[in-house]
């Protein structure tokens, strides 16, 4: 038995969790927010010390006092947002972390070795190209190459698939298999259970800081895992309630923007959820950005409730009743150091302004409180800076901001990315409720099961063009993937 085993206690975060990783094995770690996964990772990578317990690497006990020390023992971590040097090229990115190099840089050798490592991962990249020009998936591949070059023994992957399309996830998994083939132990943390069950050899569930179960993959089912995570029976996806759809909310005809997308047309009725499916890069977010005025369409027309409109800025979009919840809540959706209240009223401040032009803070507070209750936002207080909230609650705060704008059309871009199953179900519930109350919703999601479960109709895009529309009853995962990828 070769690997790492741990047993430790940290005051609130973890209680006596033990974990054993075997070389060449993909070990999945699942759990809700606050279950202790991040704390575990931090202990394993030397960022926080454990209060109790031991870490054994290859049978020897080690103490990890810094991330550099963890690295020396062969433990490395890759996070959801790739850590790269945008101004340096791929080869440098891979080798920058190597400590035992000479004073001079041997460019030729570096390029050759970089290409060799990428080849081992079955990845094709220009090693001389700048890292800033790479897609997120490619950047992650660089990080994996980096880990490989350091001969890691244990690679921790924290939500690596959150920003990837289905296609890129497949590639990522292939890279992971190459890794395990060379004897690396992979600790795979993800909220996407379907992926977990595809790639993992063993599944460990954490709940409230304790290890609930640790079983080989073939002895456990997703339902069992969910039950362990949540402590009760729960289906992963919310069933939509039936209701009649209302009048036409938005009609888009032939809109396009050079370099992004072209000739996109669709309608959404009030009370309807239109899912936008497709690979990352298909242009779905671009369509949303066009409708929201951040990158307006150059051709085609948009009609809202029958009236043609021109939307040239987010302000105009909001005025016309279109709101957009962006996929990147930390960078684009929330002002992190500001309070929950301030974030909720951020898009609608003019409503809380008195005649003198001053902000009415009690009105603001009332609104924020209302949303806190309605969306079950868990926060110590309404004045808490949102950066201290968990992912799911941050997402809800962002949602509250847009709901407060009372839009006719709400565009949601990856609304459940990176949040745990419990919060995800809550968000789905909210979406259903909104649809029932007559809002037209455009749901952009790379989570196919989610798209299938939530949408009344699904529009598939590929490389900037729409390639198919599916009604709820006729849509299947295979059908959508086929359309999204083109004739396989």
């Amino acid at each position, binding site marked *: 038995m070769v690997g790492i085993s741990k047993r430790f206690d940290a005051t609130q975060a973890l209680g006596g969790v033990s974990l054993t990783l075997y070389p060449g094995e993909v070990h999945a770690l699942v759990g809700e927010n606050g279950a202790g996964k991040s704390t575990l990772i931090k202990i394993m990578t030397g960022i926080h010390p454990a209060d109790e317990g031991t870490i054994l690497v290859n049978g020897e006990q080690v103490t990890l006092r810094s991330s550099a020390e963890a690295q020396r023992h062969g433990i490395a971590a890759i996070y959801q947002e790739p850590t790269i040097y945008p101004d340096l090229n791929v080869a440098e990115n891979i080798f920058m972390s190597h400590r035992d190099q000479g004073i001079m840089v041997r460019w030729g050798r570096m390029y050759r070795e970089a290409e060799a490592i990428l080849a081992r991962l079955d990845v094709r990249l220009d090693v001389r190209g700048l890292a800033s*020009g790479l897609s997120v998936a*490619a950047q992650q591949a660089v990080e994996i190459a980096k880990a490989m070059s350091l001969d890691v023994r244990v690679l921790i992957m924290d939500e690596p698939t959150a920003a990837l399309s289905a296609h890129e996830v497949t590639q990522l998994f292939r890279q992971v298999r190459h890794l395990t083939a060379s004897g690396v132990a992979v600790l795979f943390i993800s909220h996407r259970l379907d992926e977990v069950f595809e790639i993992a050899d063993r599944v460990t569930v954490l709940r409230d800081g304790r290890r609930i179960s640790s079983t080989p993959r073939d002895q456990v089912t997703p339902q069992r895992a969910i039950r362990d995570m949540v402590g009760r029976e729960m289906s992963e996806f919310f069933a939509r309630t039936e209701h009649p759809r209302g009048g036409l909310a938005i009609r888009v005809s032939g809109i396009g923007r050079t370099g992004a997308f072209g000739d996109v047309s669709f309608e959404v009725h009030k009370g309807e959820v239109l899912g936008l499916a497709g690979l990352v890069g298909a242009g779905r977010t671009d369509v949303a950005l066009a409708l929201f005025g951040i990158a307006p369409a150059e051709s085609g027309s948009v009609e809202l409730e029958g009236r043609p409109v021109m939307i040239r800025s987010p302000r105009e979009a909001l005025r016309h009743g279109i709101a957009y919840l962006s996929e990147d809540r930390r960078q684009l959706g929330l002002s992190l150091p500001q309070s929950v209240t301030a974030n909720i009223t951020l898009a609608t401040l003019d409503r809380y302004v008195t005649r003198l032009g001053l902000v009415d803070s009690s009105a603001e507070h009332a609104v924020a409180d209302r949303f806190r209750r309605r969306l079950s936002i868990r926060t110590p207080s309404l004045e808490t800076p949102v950066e201290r909230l968990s992912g799911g609650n941050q997402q809800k705060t962002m949602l509250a901001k847009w709901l407060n704008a009372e839009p006719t059309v709400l565009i949601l871009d990856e609304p459940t990315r990176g949040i745990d199953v419990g919060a995800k179900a809550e968000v789905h519930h909210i979406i259903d409720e909104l649809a029932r109350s007559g809002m037209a919703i455009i749901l952009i999601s790379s989570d196919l099961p989610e798209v299938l479960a939530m949408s009344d109709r699904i529009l598939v895009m590929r490389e900037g063009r729409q390639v198919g529309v599916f009604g709820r009853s006729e849509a299947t995962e295979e059908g959508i993937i086929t359309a999204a990828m083109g004739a396989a």
Partner: protein
Amino acid sequence: MSGTAAGPAERAAVGRRPRPKLRPERLRELSLLAVIGVSVLVFSQLVDNYLSGSFFNRVTTSMAITAVLAAAQTIVILTRNIDLSVGSIVGVTAYVTGEYLAAHQTTAPVLAVGLAMLMGCVLGLLNGTLVAYGRVPSIIVTLGTLAIYRTWLIDHARSRTITADSLPQWLVEFPQRTVVSFGGLDIRLVLTVAVVVILVLQLALGRLRWGRWVYAVGSNPDAARQEGLPTERITLGAFAMCGALSGLAGFMFLSRFGTITVAAGQGLELASVAAAVVGGVSILGGSGTLVGALLGALLIDLLELSLVRVPEISVFWRDAVLGALILLAIAGDFAIGKRLRRFWTSPPRHSSKPPEREATTDA
């Protein structure tokens, strides 16, 4: 530079975009050369006897100091910092070196240069320590040391001025010394020193591990720290190097002007930043070259000195036009550069996360 990880079937399909040989920095340097060339052409029409040897000599001598300072500033900017105290460092080193040489006339030139650079280095180390270990933002540190160093100089000098006639002959003649001459065009020693230093440093930044670390720290300081790079020492080194180069500039300043007052060097810091930026160094850190800064300094000094010679433009118009031209240069560069950069590096059309570097519309 296609950035997609493709499977076996797709690999063939994706193919390879013909990769251009030019990196964005080379492009910037070439466009600067072009702008310089165009300026020379334009001015040669406006001014009589523009293309003369003496003018060339004037420009190159003056530009040598600015170039060295621009290089100094560049190294610091690359690490995502700024050094506003370089002007004061120039003043201090020029003055103290002058003082020393006035008292010890037989000092070897090399020692004099070494003294200036050593002093500059020490002052730079103080800056660097406060930034790297004190974790004080560099704009605050160097705003403070700009005042502190200048105050020290004023206190030390006690209103005495260094005058040229008190200095050793070789120093006074230094600006005139020529390495090689083509007809009226002299390649002066000061220029050669500046260019050689910059080229050597550029090579160092490109070939030495420490140089790559400088770029890494500026490109992503957190990644650098996490990966175990000695970020504090790198930053400290950058400031020390900047100080040493400022000391060199101080020496050149002393030799050029001979008369040094306590106000020597005031204002040079902003010129050094301007030259670096015009030369393509990104204020955000992590990208830009010393050669670019050199060309930026050349362009700015060229414009400044050329404008003086245009008879229609009075002396007082010089700065105004210069400011406008710098603005145009930066604006033009941003507009063109953005387009060209997009063409060269071809980021995927719709990455799921807008790359942070592209955020030029948001400060």
